[in-house]
């Protein structure tokens, strides 16, 4: 015996057959969509995706540019420090010439020693010609004194 869908035996509710058939036909399949509307939606989606692609590419290039700039900045910050640092041997040679009294440091006492030596007329060493002008005179004393007070290096070298 076929079961009648229009009857609910549990609750006793009965719906008219016509209403039941109408509801069944309404939810039976997907509503018909015209092909033009489908095409329109697809075209719009394609356009939007096409617009997004350059943004992604731009973002990638921006990130690459920022990384390159950071690398360049790091080079600029660290490279001059390495370049400007004088070789220890050269530094020692200059310090040795300025260290007139030979106490292992360059300070005002070296300038005083050279000044006294020049004033007394004693023979001066050729390596005391600090400014390399062919003479050992007061200018060399000034160069040593200025080296002693230089704030870019320690006075007691």
């Amino acid at each position, binding site marked *: 015996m076929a079961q009648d869908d229009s009857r609910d035996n549990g609750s006793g509710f009965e719906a008219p057959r016509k209403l039941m058939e109408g509801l069944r036909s309404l939810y039976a399949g997907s509503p018909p969509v015209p092909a033009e509307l489908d095409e329109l939606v697809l075209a719009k989606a394609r356009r939007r995706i096409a617009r997004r692609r350059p943004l992604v590419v731009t973002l990638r290039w921006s990130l690459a540019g920022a990384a390159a700039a950071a690398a360049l900045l790091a080079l600029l910050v660290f490279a001059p420090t390495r370049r400007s640092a004088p070789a220890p041997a050269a530094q020692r040679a200059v310090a040795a010439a300025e260290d007139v*009294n030979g106490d292992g440091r360059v*300070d*005002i*006492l070296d*300038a*005083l*020693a050279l*000044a*006294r030596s020049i*004033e007394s007329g004693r023979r001066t060493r050729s390596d005391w010609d600090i400014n390399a002008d062919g003479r050992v005179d007061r200018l060399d004393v*000034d160069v040593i*004194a*200025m080296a*002693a*007070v*230089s*704030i*870019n290096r320690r*006075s*007691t070298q």
Partner: protein
Amino acid sequence: MRTWHAVVVILLCLAAQAAAQDAAERPAVRFEAVDVYVDSGAQPLAAYQFELTAKKAKVAIVGVEGGEHPAFKEAPYYDPAALSRDRIIIAAFNTGRDLPTGRTRVARVHFQVSGLEEPAYAVTLNVAASSEGARIPATAAVEQGGKR
């Protein structure tokens, strides 16, 4: 619309008042002179070298003068790069016979001070020497001079 205008005007007035108050509280730039003394006791002082620093405040060295004794009256040696900084090394020598003994002012350093903090000056004597170039025991001290 009128309410918005009133709110904007009130906000502008408050901002202007805050800016004016901030400007009034900001201290003016001032100048201080710092005297540096070296005491070599009974030994005649022929050469000195010291390092002067200023901490705790925004300062800039703006000038250096010589001392009070004729032997150190002339401007001493210093690195011009120290100007506009808070640290300087100063030195001088004299090969003459008229040299100071005891406590003598060897230099005066002028500072530009900005901000509320009072600078703390410190001096370190690197070396003091006799006319023969021999190191002699000595002490250095700073005294704050006038402000303007």
